């Protein structure tokens, strides 16, 4: 139990998927301009992560392992993720058109987002049980959402400041992301 809590907190702060592993940078940079978009994106990613990690784990345990087809991991997981993202898109379009429009092109980009595949693969390669898979996935998703929310609140402020013309937009965002990553290194003492 304690081990799971440590794992959970560790994934959010110490091994944050954005700041420590540099995964999922595309939606991170693209959707972190407004706080509302970030929260929506973070929730969408958590939703897709949970569903895909659990489905991937089930397929790995009940289909791929018994049939010695582990080498199909990558392609099968991508298939699962793509399907789930399509599903999320349909659900969003129906129930929250505003969020759907706000996320725009970044919603299908969740599919090619390395974070989703990474979490699925990491769970499978470390041989986690179902509970540990869920905890890991939740930790990864919340860590991503934390990164997004932090970034968007900083970027909302940055919009009102006097940034040099050459650095406006993405460049200053990357610099800020790097600085946050350095700051997050301080959490490693937590372990």
């Amino acid at each position: 139990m304690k081990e799971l809590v440590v794992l959970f907190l560790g994934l959010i702060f110490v091994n944050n998927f954005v700041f420590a592993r540099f995964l999922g940078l595309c939606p991170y940079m693209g959707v972190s301009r407004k706080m509302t978009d970030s929260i929506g994106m973070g929730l969408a990613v958590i939703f897709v992560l949970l569903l895909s990690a659990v489905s991937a784990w089930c397929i790995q345990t009940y289909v791929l392992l018994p049939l010695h087809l582990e080498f199909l991991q990558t392609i099968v997981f991508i298939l699962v993720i793509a399907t789930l993202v399509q599903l999320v898109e349909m659900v969003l379009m129906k129930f929250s058109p505003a969020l759907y429009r706000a996320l725009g092109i970044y919603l299908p980009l969740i599919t090619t987002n390395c974070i989703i595949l990474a979490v699925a693969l990491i769970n499978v390669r470390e041989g986690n049980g179902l509970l540990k898979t869920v905890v890991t996935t939740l930790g990864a998703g919340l860590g991503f959402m934390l990164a997004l929310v932090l970034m968007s609140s900083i970027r909302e402020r940055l919009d009102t400041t006097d940034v040099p013309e050459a650095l406006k937009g993405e460049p200053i965002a990357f610099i800020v992301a790097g600085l946050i990553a350095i700051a997050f290194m301080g959490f490693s003492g937590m372990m």
Partner: protein
Amino acid sequence: MTLLIVSIAILGLLGLLMGVGLGFASKKLALQTDPRIDLVLGILPGANCGACGFSGCFQYAKSIVEDGVSSGLCTVGSRETAKKIADLMGIQGQSVVKRTARIHCGGDFIKRQKAEYEGVPTCMAASLVAGGTIQCGYGCLGFGDCVNVCAFGAMTSRENLPPVIDDDLCTACGKCVRACPRNLIELIPAEKLTVVACSSRDKSSLVRKVCDVGCIACGLCVKKCPEQAIVVTDNLARIRYDSCKNAGECFMVCPTKCIQAKK
């Protein structure tokens, strides 16, 4: 061998399951959208290239149907696409006013070059050097930025005069308007045949020095127009196209042949 068959079978089965699942979900989660959007989407090439300025063909189709955006923005589909969409939207009770681009300059850019220009051969670059490479501070520089950007081949360069625009090929997409650094091009209804081919705000004495066909703001066109459709402000005559009825009096009376008329 069995491994190969088994893996293909498993992949195929999974794919089939997901496909069916998605198909089912799309029916259950279907939205009430304007059926015209799908029709327009079917006409569009589907390249999702973004040249129209929208993020994907679906967004463009949506904007055409809901916001009445011009159907001529798709550079991949070009004429046929624009016409088919216009027909489709027209059938639904909206009238499509055919527009075309007209250039407000008729001056000779070779004859009135200030000096030898050795720089980037684009209008944008030439307009930034010493107030432009021609003596008139407002006129066409002749490097053809507009011709180059036209995706429909509607503009043809001329040796020493501003380009000719083919009204039939022009889709009024607006690219040439944005490309001209001197803002010489205007989109007007294609049925209007006259245009003041000058944009110079300079006094008439100055205009005559640098151009044979410039507007000298004499006001004869204003007096002669039966619809009072022309006004002279800032030393320049301007036709108000909502009032113009193609009488052509302005064209006939202009002393410098500044006002041009299509047949």
